């Protein structure tokens, strides 16, 4: 049997869902990317629930030298920023997550953070 590969239809740019990128910094010590990902996800899920989190649709785009760029739906930036207030500890280490900048492109944030 021959398996045919279906080519994914390309959604035009104008019809794609709008998104925002937020640059966060983690204060108080080094945190591994895996631990950050886990801690971030657990706290947001417990606060917003599955439905709320799906509406925000956050994705960690980049995590480098204690700075993270997180993607979310446009208009849900404040929800995401507010949700990070509940992240108290990562791997039993107390941290503060500080939002620095919100932008429509990753490039701007990368330039700002120098990462």
């Amino acid at each position, binding site marked *: 049997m021959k398996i045919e590969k279906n080519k994914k239809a390309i959604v035009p740019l104008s019809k794609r869902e709008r998104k925002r990128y937020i640059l966060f910094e983690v*204060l*108080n010590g080094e945190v591994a990317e895996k631990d950050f990902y886990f801690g971030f996800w657990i706290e947001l899920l*417990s606060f917003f629930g599955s439905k709320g989190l799906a509406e925000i649709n956050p994705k960690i785009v980049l995590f480098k030298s204690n700075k993270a760029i997180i993607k979310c739906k446009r208009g849900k930036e*404040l*929800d995401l*920023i*507010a949700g*990070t*207030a*509940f992240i*108290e500890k990562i791997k039993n280490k*107390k*941290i*503060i*997550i*500080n*939002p620095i900048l919100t932008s429509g492109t990753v490039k701007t944030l990368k330039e700002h953070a120098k990462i």
Partner: protein
Amino acid sequence: MDIVYTQPLKELLQVSTYFNEQLVVLVTNEKDEKVAKTNSLLPCYLISESTPENELQKLSSKTRAVLGGSVKANELAVRIKADYLLQPSGDKQFFDLGLAQKLAANGTIVVLMFEELLKANSFERHQYWKNYLELVRYCKQKNTKFIVASGTKDPLLLRPPKVREALAVLLGLPAEKAREYLNETIKVK
């Protein structure tokens, strides 16, 4: 502007300087007030229902914050025209439209101490959130000032102003108002 408890001042100051905002420290006696002033922090006397009447009269010229959480305590804040009313509601609602109007007339700022919400378990947290959604709705109707403060002793539980602003917006306050109330400069009495 952020509101915190007294200890340890140096670390609190370090973090708040990083966030570039004024720190109001809740004090209970003159010694703590002096320490706060020497650390260039803004002292504010913490008053509760149990504070005796003669003490209240002594503190009438100072910046005062009333720890709410009961009908009596919330009324005390109105009676003494306190500058801040902390935690007017907990997992039970003690705030109404009438109180919001009186507080607005006095210029009292209603404060949600974020650490209490953070430390609550998931059931209590949902009660807190429900009560504060209602509280913010009343504040919005009567133009009562409302802010979210860190309300902590631990410097690592201080939350950045942007985050607290976002929390206030999430509770239903318009973004401009949330920013305006948080950036208000405090007069030291």
